[in-house]
């Protein structure tokens, strides 16, 4: 279908602020009388704090208040509190001091006396599973979202069942599913691989640290924060503050990067709100880079084992997967389950068994990071598929085509269908642009100490949800106001999905205003900018609201000129009679009629199925124009997938273990392309993050003291300009999805995993197919592999340099 706006590039309204410095991030706000707070962070990975004496600190000039764990809500189960007397990781906030400036606050922290008793701590999940192993929390070592805090130990027999270098497969899991006849399917395989593996945790390190500022006015809490969502996080944030959602004014115009770490409400953001309430002054909490490392979450690490069976045809017959997840000390994020779903959809095994268990560790809290689970497991599975291809004499691209998900795909423990899937098309498009047939022949080509490696990688993430609300308003001046509560992560999809409204209402983009970034803009209940969902989810709810406004325009015209609504149409920001073009109302006139007619037209009557947040927002703007408001009730009976394929060629120096990426092409299957330049930017940015995930980034801990070894950017090694090619190729399949009114699906996460796994495969290819069993693959691992030396880490060891 031809659209006038969808699929076209545009200038997002928030970009001017970014290039002029006028964009305001949380730390750029200030308020009269504002004071600053600093936190006392735990120096120990697990400890008990007692006998806190703040009297000397409070007697200092300029100190205005202290906030301790007693002042903030206690948490159930394994959940993380804002402040705690039982810190469970180095860097956990114990208390905070507010003062007229940060120097004074920091000096006051030195004057606080307290006792701190070290408790046993654990970094390695398998050690916590040993009989008698340490628990990261006194009450247990297992918890996750939806999995209550509990203690689980494996038996000595479980550990003895496997070779010491292998992951034991018999221990108790908390999450498991299977389908098909596993034994029979393995027996049908021509090759079976059985590999233990480790994928490292890595820090999010968003460029903008999660600073926040808060004050109270007339019983309402005003909070300026950094987040990937706007409406979706309000209930959680209000709960942390201890108020009703309606009493929270949340301002988040820009977010300086989140990558999953700022998706929903997070505890530390509520600290300045509590401090401000206690001392009666606005409070700014500036977060340093080191604090961001501790509080900004990290991707879960995996220890696991996978058994993969492939038939002589190249068809994957069976997979048996077990994952132990390193979750941090709190609920973390269920990467382990997502990883299993990704294996099922990407390789379509006839039979699959999955078991998983999330283990609490005394490391910084785990959180969702771009492709949580899917992207780690892509780096485990893709090179294994290559191993099968080599042994069976099948082209590595072809083996992926043979197993690629399509419209008939059923996957996961619940055997869900997909809305549509075109991974074969993505592979084909990428292969063409990359010139796979010619490039793959370069594999193993040598130039002195350098050798060429070629890789293709794939990744998956679900790409959308349903059931959220849309809210639009045509004002009496004729302008179209699109209320978006999705948040502003920096992908511009908040704006691209707003264009769906303009498209439906055939409104010029210049006449549209996006209302966002502030609760006071009367925003609807929307999902957030995470989980590759925005483009699918928000385009549906915006479409629903736009269709409601369209219907009301037609009804208003019918009421004005007579006849039925189907005698009218819209175009050029007017509603008109199809038979008599002189019977025409401009949108401005129609908006005024809506106000005069009242009722549903002006938003006084609204549907019953709206979320209370949307209802309140609709009521607040009722009577100010023509109101379109609706819940997304469009059918959704399957999982919308985002699937990606990446192609990479590298030149690896066998003397240094370093490599240069010579070419990369990434292709995404995400339905209709809504914003080409934005899509290209995501595919490329995802590739850059994927390169870091595959080869440089991991968090490292000193096993003796539980101290973090790589807190800053310099040691955490996110890729710089010089680590990646200066030009990256991108494309999209661009076939409409049937379960989105405009055919759109999301795409943000697999574009990282496909690049990460393509790079792992390219390194492996350069070394003749060596399987590393561990990510990231760092130069010393490559050198050891080339020299056929033992690696410096033990096979299942975690948090290693």
């Amino acid at each position, binding site marked *: 279908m031809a659209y006038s706006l969808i699929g076209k590039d545009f200038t997002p309204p928030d970009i001017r602020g970014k*290039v002029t410095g006028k964009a305001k991030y949380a730390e750029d706000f200030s308020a009269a009388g504002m004071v600053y707070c600093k936190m006392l*962070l735990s120096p120990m990975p697990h400890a008990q704090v007692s006998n806190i004496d703040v009297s000397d600190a409070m007697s200092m000039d300029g100190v205005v208040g202290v906030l301790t764990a007693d002042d903030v809500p206690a948490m159930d189960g394994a959940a993380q509190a804002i402040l705690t007397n039982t810190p469970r990781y180095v860097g956990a906030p114990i208390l905070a001091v507010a003062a007229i*400036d940060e120097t*004074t606050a920091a000096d006051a922290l030195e004057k606080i006396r307290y006792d701190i008793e070290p408790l046993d701590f654990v970094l390695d999940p398998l050690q916590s599973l040993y009989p008698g192993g340490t628990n990261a929390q006194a009450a247990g070592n297992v918890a996750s979202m939806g999995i209550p805090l509990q203690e689980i130990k494996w038996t000595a027999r479980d550990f003895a069942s496997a070779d010491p270098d292998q992951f034991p497969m018999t221990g108790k899991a908390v999450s498991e599913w299977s389908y098909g006849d596993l034994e029979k399917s393995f027996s049908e395989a021509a090759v079976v691989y059985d590999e233990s593996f480790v994928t490292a945790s890595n820090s999010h390190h968003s460029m903008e640290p999660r600073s926040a500022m808060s004050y109270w006015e007339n019983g309402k809490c005003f909070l300026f924060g950094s987040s990937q969502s706007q409406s979706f996080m309000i209930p959680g944030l209000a709960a942390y503050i201890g108020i009703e959602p309606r009493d929270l004014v949340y301002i988040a115009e820009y977010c300086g990067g989140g990558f999953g770490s700022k998706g929903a*409400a997070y505890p530390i953001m509520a600290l300045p709100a509590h401090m401000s309430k206690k001392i009666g002054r606005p409070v700014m909490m500036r977060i340093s880079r080191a604090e961001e490392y501790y509080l900004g979450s990290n991707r879960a690490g995996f220890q696991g084992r996978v058994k993969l069976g492939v038939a002589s045809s190249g068809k994957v017959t069976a997979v048996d997967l077990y994952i132990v997840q390193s979750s941090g000390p709190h609920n973390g994020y269920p990467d382990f389950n997502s990883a299993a779903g990704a294996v099922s959809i990407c390789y379509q095994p006839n039979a699959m068994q999955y078991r998983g268990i999330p283990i609490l560790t005394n490391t910084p809290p785990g959180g969702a990071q771009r492709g949580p689970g899917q992207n780690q497991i892509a780096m485990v599975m893709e090179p294994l598929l290559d191993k099968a291809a080599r042994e069976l004499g099948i082209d590595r691209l072809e083996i992926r085509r043979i197993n690629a998900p399509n419209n008939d795909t059923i996957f996961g423990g619940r055997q869900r269908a997909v809305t549509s899937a075109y991974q074969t098309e993505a592979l084909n498009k990428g292969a063409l642009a990359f010139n796979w047939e010619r490039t793959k022949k370069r594999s193993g080509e040598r130039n002195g100490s350098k050798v060429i490696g070629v890789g293709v990688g794939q990744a998956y993430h679900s790409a959308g949800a349903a059931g959220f609300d849309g809210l639009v308003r045509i004002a009496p001046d004729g302008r179209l106001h699109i209320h978006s509560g999705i948040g502003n992560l*920096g992908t511009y999809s908040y704006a691209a999905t707003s264009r769906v409204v303009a498209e439906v209402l055939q409104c010029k983009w210049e006449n549209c205003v996006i209302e966002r970034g502030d609760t006071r803009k009367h925003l609807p209940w929307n999902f957030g900018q*995470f989980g590759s969902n925005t483009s699918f989810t928000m385009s549906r709810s915006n479409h629903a609201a736009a269709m409601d406004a369209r219907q009301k325009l037609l009804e208003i015209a019918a009421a004005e000129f007579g006849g039925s609504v189907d005698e009218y149409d819209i175009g050029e920001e007017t509603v008109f009679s199809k038979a008599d073009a002189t019977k025409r109302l401009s949108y401005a006139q129609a908006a005024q009629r809506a106000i005069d007619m009242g009722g549903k037209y002006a938003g006084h009557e609204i549907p019953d199925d709206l979320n209370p947040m949307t209802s309140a927002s609709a009521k607040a703007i009722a009577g100010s124009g023509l109101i379109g408001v609706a819940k997304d009730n469009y059918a959704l009976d399957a999982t919308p997938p985002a699937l990606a394929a990446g192609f990479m060629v590298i030149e690896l120096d066998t003397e240094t273990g370093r490599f240069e990426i010579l070419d990369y092409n990434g292709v995404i299957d995400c339905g209709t392309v809504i914003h080409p330049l934005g899509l290209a*930017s995501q595919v490329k940015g995802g590739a850059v993050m994927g390169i870091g995930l595959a080869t440089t980034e991991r968090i490292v801990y000193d096993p003796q003291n539980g101290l*973090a070894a790589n807190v800053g950017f310099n040691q955490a090694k*996110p890729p710089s300009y010089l680590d990646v090619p200066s030009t990256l190729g991108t494309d999209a399949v661009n076939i409409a999805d049937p379960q989105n009114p405009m055919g759109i699906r999301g795409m943000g996460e697999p574009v990282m995993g496909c690049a990460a796994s393509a790079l792992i495969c390219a390194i492996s290819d350069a070394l003749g197919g060596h399987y590393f069993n561990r990510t990231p693959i760092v130069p010393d691992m490559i050198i050891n592999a080339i020299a056929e030396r033992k690696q410096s880490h033990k096979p299942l060891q975690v948090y290693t340099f």
Partner: protein
Amino acid sequence: MKDPTTYFPGDSLNEADPPGLSAFRSSRRAFIKGVIASGAVAASSGYLLSGCAPGEGPAAGSVERLISLNVNGRIRRVDVLPNETLAMTLRYKLGLTGTKLACDRGECGACTVVIDGMTNYSCSTLTHTVGSRSVRTIEGLEGPDGELHPIQQAFIDELGPQCGFCTPGQIMSTVVLLERNPKPTRDEARRALSGNLCRCGAYDHYLNSVMRAAEVI
């Protein structure tokens, strides 16, 4: 209370540092030397935001000095503490919040400003060392009537930024690059901007922006 971190169905250096980390840090010798030269004895709290509270005097005992700074073509009189960084002065004394702090230790370039035609990490520059040199920040690029600098326009046209937090620094590095080398190759641009980290990985689009700007300037 229950964990308010709502499940979202995807699929279903400073005193804050704990002890023991110093071994992993890179040296910041020049910065420390600057602190010593400026007369500040205690450098440990150099990163902190001090003496900025409205209506409050600076911390007792500090060596306060009223100085003139040439920022974006204007002379600004400002109270500056001996251990105050230029990023702090710009952001919290002069209200120029376009200069961002992302690491505060010279690792990322988000705080890049131009001093006498040279890129400079303002987080690692003591304000007292600036003297009479001219400082240019992101706020100084727009024309008198708010028209965008061609570099800014190019960054818009190529959709350079993603989250935007590193963008002012990227643009200031581009300003210096194109003043010195108006027609850089893509590889020269890449090297010139390599001191500016972008976690979104928007490097390719930033380089497209630089190359477009080079065409129109």
